């Protein structure tokens, strides 16, 4: 797209060159530069840049005297005029201030404020900008009009066509025509003004009327933009503007059209960015390149789409600079400059709103309002300022400031329109979380519902601001997560609605306060439009009611805050909890909990990098569905008993755990990680091993929670235990589980102190298979004890979870032997493939083995009344274990399994000098020598001692 456009632009430039020279010497000089540059389209964009740069340089050189004049004028203005004085003075001063600010990198807001102060200039600019948009379309066509009109703008024309193409592709062009109409009128006025200008300083006066007219036109444009995307309109505007520009060029004020064009491309770009962010951006960047600001391009590439838009404006500024130079050269009078400056300012104003729109589709609605206000204010200011001519100084200053102003412009506009406060917040937030916002925006564009949700979330942000930032994040995350699992959320919502509607009757004392929240939640859930909305709202509601009512609840909220990604889901769970508290509905809770669990699993997976979760989410979901069905069939009476959704959570998890065929500690770890927020969650993993164990643990959990809450519903909790046990029975379908459930019911009679008894009784009840599982899971027994201790120690559920988590981590991380070492050894011996999941089991085995080993060795040493474990002790152990027998001596095993340094320690070897290492303790060589001597004396009397000695010693040693 670009190259042909460039070509056309070049062609246009050629035409322009032909056309221009007669009119203004300055223009001819500018035109010559492009003509000098090779027209061939080998690298259109680059050439255009180079040409531009060269032009600028030349112009700067050319204009050096003009610049001097400008400076002198500026200084005079500064000295003579203050802001309080006439509007003209205001214009100049603010522009200067803006320059300073830009140089010093002041905040965009300040720049915007300054710009607002200089508002009158802005309004004329806007007017001018509109016409250029119209002009551009023709250039897109290939550009007969552009050729005629934009001689100076040759670079601009190049960029414009590309812009136009993009806009055309997007099909946004509808709305622009309005602007174009306005622009055309303006252009006509401008032409008149330009003619006047050429003739004399009267140009300024003419400009002012044109600006006023343009203002009136603009306001309608703004309205249009509000209704529909402004972007569509832009292309039309450009087309018209291009035509008008041609006309204008015919007239004296070529400069103004140029400015318009620059402004228009910027405008066009943002809209294009909206529909097709990536492609549009690229095109925009290209256009920016055409404009001749390489630095601008770089920045735009690095930044997100939103930022690229400002770059566009930067491009515009560059154009404006070029235009200014040209204008200065062309027109000696300051009137031309003034016209140019307003145009640039207007372009800025337009750009900022467009940028905001493009960034966030949801915000677009509000943007138009901004434009309206800004446009009106600008018009008013314009009328004032137009009276006083503004020198070209403003233009340059504004251009400089514009770069930094883009963001600030949006902000300032928002400030102007108080109604758009929400939008302002959003805009403010955008730069901060540019990536997130952009991503979310993209997603939003794809899914209208999601976009609406985001808008709401943004609004919520504005409201919540700093306090509930966490929640906001959760809401954002929720957009993605919700998309991933929309079905489940909807289901859950529906279920909640049903349950609430049904069970609204049995309300507890607490319910009164919560009813309002619940209703709100219901409405939200009914809408189903945005999963994010209900979540965020639920989160808010949850926070509020929890804080109000129970000490437990705030703790939960804290946990939620701690968990970032989980906050959404937790928020849902919290909302469910609050609802439950209010209504005490078991089904709703269950459903919500299930949903929350579904949600929780995903973030947990992310959180738990340890890879504890080996199970697939899909089967769990299926299980949950089954559970839901089962619960539906259950007696409703139990609903009231369950006060918290948290209680439900552990139950469901516990169910899942036994159901999982693996039954390995990994699942337990999963449950732990997932349930980290809940106090009861930790207990579940420990219970994993045996189906029976989970039940008592559940009771313990429930009791703990009850204790924490200090609620009077111990009995209720127990009843719920019974219900849970029934559920488990249905789930597991194990006879022992049923027995355990019955036992639990019996236990339920006893409230507080039974925990210990439960724990103790469990082993008795557990049959052999339980023991087997225990053997598998060495870590299981300790957690149970720990859990009981926790329950006894801490009355609050909050403290419990933390401690439990720590303990669980210890257990998990606690490796009897280093993992790598153990696995390498095992793989070495296995001689086959070993799956990675072996380690937990292997670790358990080694733990038990080493326990037994250490006990045996210690016993042997103690039996010998030693505290030192000797080699003989280990040999004895190996002999008892069967590794050492008559056929298999120790030395063979040592040589086979141990490394050389160890072998050297254990097996005595004769080294040089008849030194045996290690020493043989039983009979040391010297003693042995004497012994031999004696024996030789006894047995070998008559033989010479020396003759016998050496060979005999050697023989004995060998033996």
């Amino acid at each position, binding site marked *: 797209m670009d190259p042909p456009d460039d070509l056309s632009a070049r062609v246009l430039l050629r035409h322009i060159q032909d056309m221009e020279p007669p009119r203004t010497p300055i223009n001819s000089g500018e035109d010559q530069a492009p003509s000098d540059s090779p027209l061939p389209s080998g690298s259109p964009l680059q050439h255009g840049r180079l040409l531009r740069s060269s032009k600028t340089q030349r112009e700067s050189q050319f204009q050096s005297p003009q610049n001097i004049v400008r400076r002198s004028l500026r200084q005079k203005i500064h000295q003579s005029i203050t802001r309080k004085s006439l509007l003209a003075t205001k214009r100049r001063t603010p522009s200067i201030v803006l320059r300073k600010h830009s140089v010093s990198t002041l905040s965009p807001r300040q720049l915007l404020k300054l710009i607002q102060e200089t508002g009158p200039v802005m309004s004329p600019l806007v007017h001018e900008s509109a016409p250029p948009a119209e002009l551009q379309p023709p250039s897109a066509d290939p550009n007969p009009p552009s050729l005629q009109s934009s001689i100076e703008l040759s670079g601009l024309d190049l960029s414009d066509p590309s812009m136009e193409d993009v806009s055309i592709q997007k099909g946004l062009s509808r709305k622009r025509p309005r602007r174009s109409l306005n622009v055309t009128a303006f252009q006509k006025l401008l032409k008149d003004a330009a003619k006047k200008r050429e003739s004399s300083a009267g140009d300024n006066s003419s400009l002012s009327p044109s600006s006023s007219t343009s203002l009136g036109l603009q306001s309608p444009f703004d309205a249009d933009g509000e209704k529909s995307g402004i972007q569509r309109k832009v292309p039309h505007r450009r087309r018209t503007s291009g035509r008008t520009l041609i006309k204008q060029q015919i007239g004296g004020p070529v400069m103004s059209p140029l400015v318009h064009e620059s402004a228009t491309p910027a405008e066009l770009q943002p809209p294009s960015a909206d529909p097709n962010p990536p492609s549009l951006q690229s095109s925009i960047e290209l256009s920016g390149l055409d404009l001749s600001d390489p630095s601008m391009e770089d920045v735009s590439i690095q930044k997100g789409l939103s930022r690229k838009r400002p770059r566009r404006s930067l491009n515009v500024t560059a154009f404006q600079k070029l235009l200014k130079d040209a204008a200065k050269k062309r027109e000696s009078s300051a009137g031309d400059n003034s016209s140019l400056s307003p145009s640039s300012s207007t372009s800025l104003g337009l750009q900022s709103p467009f940028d905001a729109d493009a960034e966030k589709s949801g915000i677009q609605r509000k943007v138009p309002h901004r434009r309206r206000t800004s446009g009106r204010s600008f018009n008013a200011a314009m009328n004032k300022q137009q009276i006083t001519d503004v020198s070209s100084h403003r233009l340059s200053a504004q251009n400089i400031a514009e770069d930094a102003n883009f963001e600030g412009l949006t902000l300032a506009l928002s400030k102007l329109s108080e109604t758009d406060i929400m939008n302002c917040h959003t805009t403010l937030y955008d730069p901060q979380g540019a990536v997130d916002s952009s991503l979310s925006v993209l997603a939003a564009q794809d899914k209208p519902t999601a976009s609406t949700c985001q808008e709401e979330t943004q609004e919520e942000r504005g409201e919540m601001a700093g306090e509930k930032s966490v929640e906001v994040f959760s809401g954002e995350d929720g957009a993605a997560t919700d998309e991933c699992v929309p079905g489940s959320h909807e289901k859950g919502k529906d279920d909640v609605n049903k349950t609430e509607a049904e069970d609204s009757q049995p309300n507890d004392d607490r319910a009164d306060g919560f009813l309002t929240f619940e209703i709100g939640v219901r409405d939200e859930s009914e809408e189903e439009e945005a999963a994010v909305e209900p979540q965020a709202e639920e989160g808010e509601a949850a926070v509020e009611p929890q804080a109000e009512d129970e000490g437990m609840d705030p703790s939960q909220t804290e946990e939620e805050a701690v968990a970032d990604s989980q906050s959404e889901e937790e928020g849902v769970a919290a909302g469910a909890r609050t609802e439950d508290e209010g209504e005490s509905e078991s089904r709703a809770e269950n459903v919500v909990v299930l949903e929350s669990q579904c949600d929780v699993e995903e973030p947990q997976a992310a959180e738990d990098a340890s890879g504890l979760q080996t199970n697939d989410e899909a089967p769990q979901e299926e299980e949950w569905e089954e559970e839901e069905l089962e619960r539906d069939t259950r007696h409703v009476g139990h609903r009231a008993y369950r006060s918290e959704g948290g209680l439900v959570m552990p139950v469901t998890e516990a169910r899942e755990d036994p159901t999982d065929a*693996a039954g*390995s500690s990994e699942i337990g770890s999963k449950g732990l990680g997932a349930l980290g927020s809940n106090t009861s969650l930790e207990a579940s993993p420990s219970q994993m091993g045996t189906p029976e164990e989970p039940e008592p643990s559940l009771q313990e959990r429930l009791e703990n929670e009850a204790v924490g809450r200090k609620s009077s519903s111990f009995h209720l909790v127990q009843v719920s235990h019974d219900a849970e046990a029934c559920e488990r029975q249905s789930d597991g379908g194990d006879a022992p589980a049923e027995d355990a459930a019955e036992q639990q019911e019996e236990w339920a009679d006893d409230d507080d102190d039974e925990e210990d008894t439960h724990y103790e009784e469990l082993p008795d009840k557990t049959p052999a298979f339980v023991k*087997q599982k225990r*053997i*598998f899971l060495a870590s299981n027994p300790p957690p149970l004890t720990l859990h009981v201790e926790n329950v006894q120690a801490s009355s609050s559920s909050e403290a419990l979870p933390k401690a439990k988590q720590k303990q669980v981590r210890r257990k998990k991380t606690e490796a*009897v*032997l*280093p993992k790598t*070492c*153990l696995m*390498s*050894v*095992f793989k*070495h*011996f*296995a*001689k*086959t*493939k*070993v*799956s990675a*999941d*072996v380690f937990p*089991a*292997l670790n*358990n*085995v*080694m733990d*038990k*083995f*080493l326990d037994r*080993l*250490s*006990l*045996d*060795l*210690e*016993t*042997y040493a*103690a039996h010998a009344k030693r*505290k*030192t*474990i*000797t*080699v003989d002790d*280990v*040999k004895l*152990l*190996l002999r*008892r*274990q069967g*590794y050492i027998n008559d056929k298999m001596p120790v030395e063979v*095993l*040592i040589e086979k399994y*141990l*490394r050389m340094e*160890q072998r050297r*320690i*254990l097996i005595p070897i004769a080294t040089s000098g008849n030194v045996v290492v*290690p020493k043989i303790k039983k009979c040391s060589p010297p003693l042995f020598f004497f012994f031999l001597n004696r024996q030789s004396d006894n047995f070998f009397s008559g033989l010479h001692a020396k003759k016998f000695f050496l060979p005999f010693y050697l023989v004995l040693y060998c033996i």
Partner: protein
Amino acid sequence: TKMPAKLTKLKRIIRGKAMGDVKIPAASEAMIELAVLLFLNSLAEEARVKAFEEKSATIRAQHINAVTKKMLKRARG
């Protein structure tokens, strides 16, 4: 076949698991390591056999769990 890396921390583990204070010289540590290696070897062999029985070329946790009881029984001192 390269010898397996040294099982580090064995002494510490044993001393930690022992009821009382126990001294473990280097030679005894080597012998303890030998015992551990022998146990691991037998466990790996049994697990491999179990895996092959289940027509699995890779040793999985279930295989080890199935063999654990027998192996621990055999390891009684």
